[in-house]
């Protein structure tokens, strides 16, 4: 028989005004299993807590119920008091007779009866409570950062500066991401590369950062504090340790007419190349698909000219396994293309804009390369088709964004600002040129943003036309832009030399595949889902994985950097302890009865359930059962409600407790 102590609180008069607390305590004393009961003016006061502690010792109690306010108010208080008197804190519960009773009912008789019922129910729960010990998980104090754009770089630097090791993995041959491609940045118009490249160099030189470029995540195992990450280092065909970055190979490479992806295919590069001059690392990579040596076995010029003999045509992909305690995902974005899409694709192309087949219809990133001093035109705005300077440029916003009929309903957030910036850059470079902008709304929330946009309109003379464009077509070397001006209510037709589309920001290619490897969730656009839109904006549902930058949703640079630093702060917080301690309200599997149907695994929002093989002493497989990783389990109990045989049970909310409460109704 249990020995439960019931303490009924008056809460001054808050409870006792409508609830006859003495009667509640008296009735509680009659309940089977209750060894002691009393009522007291303020249970949460020091004397009240001392009363509880004293009763625990004197009456040898093995469970405590405090019938008082909401557990959300004082559960911690009483559990701590009980613990200090030697009782496991999880054997102390609260019955809510204030918020759920005395404050919401005025009929004293009914309120007292209800309070007694609440005590009765909760006593049944306390009786069947289990002593629980906090769960500790060791923490490996190294972080993995996936993606070497500004988000990944910022997160990596912040974590590394806190003295923790960081593995930074980048898919491309160089870090830098999209920000390295930009010319100037809003709202200050400072040169992107001027602020970006020092950070890239910092990454390269940081003693705490291990950089893997031209590498991808192959596999992720483990859980918070203890991930095992397998990284595929793609064969670069250049031995990084030997290469001095002298550049002879790239200048001697006979195959030079390969469109340069970094320049949005406007410029050319060689088959062995560094994507851009400030690349980090400054180690070339051989593009095997375009390399004569790889395609026909004849050439080998680069190997011949390489002094340090760093060229290795035989190099293979290698797999590296790293143990880390936290992961920051910063895989960034790509731009939507207006090309014709496969029929089954939920996202559609823009036939009315010629499906990307009109050469002088470009996207914003291409315009950035045209405007960039280090770009293929040396910073001159020249149109791709004939290299002429465009006299009239039409900018179209919301191409693919907020376009439900094209399959994307969200706002890409950055286009209003960068289009305004583009009109300015254009005006600065082509003084007598005219910029037109078709827009739906000008969205400029941000420090200095609206002022910036106004400058474009009012000072730099960009003509903003509020309306959509219905068609683009070529006529006499020009692009005819047919649109409407909805403010005036007329059809507009502009003959443009160049059309720049502010195309939608989309999640990177393969974002979904990476999410599956990481076990994190993503939305229908493949943007990663944060754990809570308001309160956990950088955490993933999966513990120990954090998000930074546009992989979570369209974001500009300031927001990206903020989020990256926030993610880094979360990682550093995690790493501040040797052991991770967490609430022991977690699910446990009864391996005797579990039959391994793994329905629990399918519903677990945390990916906390894994398969576990049970073997006999000879090592023969007996069966496969579910196993809950206590470090990852969030304690929702969805697994238990799903399990047909109830072979998984949530501590603190066991079926036995709940059934007993229902029985006592």
């Amino acid at each position, binding site marked *: 028989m249990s020995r439960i102590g019931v303490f009924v609180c008056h809460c001054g008069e808050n409870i006792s005004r409508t609830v006859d607390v003495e009667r509640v305590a008296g009735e509680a004393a009659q309940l089977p299993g209750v060894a002691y009961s009393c009522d007291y003016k303020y249970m949460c006061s020091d004397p009240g807590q001392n009363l509880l502690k004293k009763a625990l010792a004197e009456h040898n109690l093995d469970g405590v119920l405090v019938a008082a306010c909401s557990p959300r108010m004082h559960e911690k208080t009483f559990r701590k008091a009980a613990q200090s008197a030697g009782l496991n804190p999880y054997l102390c519960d609260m019955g809510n007779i204030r918020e759920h009773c005395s404050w919401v009912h005025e009929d004293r008789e009914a309120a007292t009866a209800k309070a007694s019922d609440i005590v009765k129910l909760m006593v049944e729960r306390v009786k069947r409570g289990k002593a629980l010990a906090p769960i500790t998980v060791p923490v490996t104090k190294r972080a993995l950062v996936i993606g070497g754009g500004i988000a990944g770089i910022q997160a990596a630097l912040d974590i590394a500066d806190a003295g923790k090791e960081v593995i930074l993995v980048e898919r491309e041959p160089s870090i830098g991401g999209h920000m390295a491609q930009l010319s100037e940045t809003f709202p200050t118009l400072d040169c992107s590369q001027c602020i970006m490249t020092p950070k890239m160099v910092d990454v390269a030189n940081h003693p705490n950062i291990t950089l893997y470029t031209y590498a991808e995540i192959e596999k992720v195992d483990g859980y918070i504090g203890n991930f095992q990450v397998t990284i595929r280092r793609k064969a670069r065909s250049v031995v990084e340790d030997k290469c001095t970055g002298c550049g002879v190979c790239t200048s001697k490479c006979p195959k030079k007419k390969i469109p340069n992806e970094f320049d949005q295919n406007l410029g050319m590069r060689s088959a062995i190349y560094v994507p851009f001059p400030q690349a980090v690392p400054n180690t070339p990579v051989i593009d095997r698909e375009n390399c004569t040596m790889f395609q026909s076995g004849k050439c080998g010029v680069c190997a011949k000219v390489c002094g340090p003999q760093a060229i290795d045509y035989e190099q293979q992909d290698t797999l590296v396994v790293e143990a880390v305690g936290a992961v920051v995902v910063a895989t960034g974005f790509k731009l939507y293309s207006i090309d014709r899409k496969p029929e089954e694709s939920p996202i559609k192309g823009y036939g009315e804009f010629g499906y990307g087949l009109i050469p002088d219809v470009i996207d914003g990133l291409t315009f950035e390369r045209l405007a960039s001093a280090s770009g293929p035109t040396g910073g001159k705005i020249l149109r791709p088709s004939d290299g002429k300077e465009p006299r009239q440029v039409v900018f179209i916003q919301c191409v693919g964004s907020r376009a439900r009929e094209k399959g994307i309903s969200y706002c890409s957030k950055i286009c209003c600002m960068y289009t305004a910036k583009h009109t300015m850059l254009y005006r600065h470079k082509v003084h007598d040129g005219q910029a037109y902008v078709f827009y739906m709304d000008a969205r400029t929330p941000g420090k200095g943003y609206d002022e910036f946009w106004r400058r474009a309109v009012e000072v730099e003379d960009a003509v903003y036309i509020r309306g959509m464009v219905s068609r683009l077509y070529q006529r006499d070397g020009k692009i005819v832009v047919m649109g409407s001006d909805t403010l005036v209510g007329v059809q507009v037709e502009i003959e443009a030399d160049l059309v720049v589309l502010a195309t939608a920001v989309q999640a990177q290619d393969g974002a979904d595949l990476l999410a599956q490897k990481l076990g994190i969730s993503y939305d229908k656009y493949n943007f990663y889902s944060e754990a809570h839109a308001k309160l956990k904006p950088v955490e993933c549902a999966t513990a120990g994985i954090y998000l930074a930058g546009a992989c979570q949703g369209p974001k500009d640079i300031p927001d990206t950097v903020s989020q990256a630093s926030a993610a880094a702060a979360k990682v550093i917080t995690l790493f501040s302890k040797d052991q991770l301690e967490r609430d022991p309200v977690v699910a446990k599997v009864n391996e005797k009865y579990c039959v*391994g149907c793994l329905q629990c695994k*399918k519903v677990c929002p945390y990916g906390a359930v894994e398969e576990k093989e049970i073997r006999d002493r000879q090592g023969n497989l007996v069966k*496969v059962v579910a196993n809950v990783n206590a470090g990852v389990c969030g304690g929702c109990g969805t697994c238990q409600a*799903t399990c*047909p*045989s109830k072979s998984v049970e949530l501590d603190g909310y066991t079926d036995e407790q*709940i*059934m007993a409460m229902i029985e006592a109704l």
Partner: protein
Amino acid sequence: MTTINQNCYDSVTEAIRREAAKLLQEQTVAAVVGYVAGRRPGTASPAVAKSAEDAEKLVFSPACVNNLALFLSKAKKGIVPKGKTAIVAKGCDLRALAGLIGESQLNREDLVVIGVACAGVFSAAGERSLPLSDANIAAKCRECTIHTPEGVDVVAGTLPQLPDFDPVEAKELARLEAMTPQERWAFWKEHFSRCIRCMACRQICPFCYCEQCLCDRNRPQAVESSPRPAGNLAWHIVRAMHLAGRCAGCAECERSCPMDIPLNLLNRRMAQELKEQYQYEAGTTPQEKGPLNQYREDDDQSFIK
């Protein structure tokens, strides 16, 4: 009355024997789970053939009512020897196999599935001495959509032209749906009051493979184990709920019920709902998640205030 020509069953029998003998002789499989004829005419029972000799005794007839997937589930562990197994499966049984694969109870690679072209089997109460016809065909076969097996390793036999049968079960379901809650309560109360908790419905179900049935537990007791009307109702509700989204629709529960409780109506009602709401149907392809193991953010919630 429409009668189905018996010849098609003979051709299946022949094909099963041939295939089983080959598989066993070549030691491709350790055993073939199939049917043998019973002592009484018009009966058959499941059997595990472990030799080419055993294979000669395998049959297929309208009496082969059992869903043999049961014998591959963990509930029946041990009776099929270790190693690769061949199984004779009707279309309805295939869905159960797919379900068991989806629930990690079976590996497709460990199976050789001998799918039978099945024109139908006897109903529980049907006269077994007559050829299969409108009068004695099982309700599930009347609405079968999977007479010819899909995704199997071998197809045994071919089908004759099959007549259209009256969908009695669908009609019964519609009749119940049209009742008032009070009438339905009375209907089920009468049926459940006869339940003696022989557990045939559970034991014959390929998906009731739990080592410890929730309903056998007594601490806490979720469902009264004694065969009284209250516990009987609770048991059948829990059973239907646990099978929702998993049930393959083989209707073995109903067939094996000695008290003639129309249990498959419960399963069908659930299946109908899951199809309407979540476009889920038990099929012959293993699915990673059942309808109640997944969700969509825009799932219907009109019933939630």
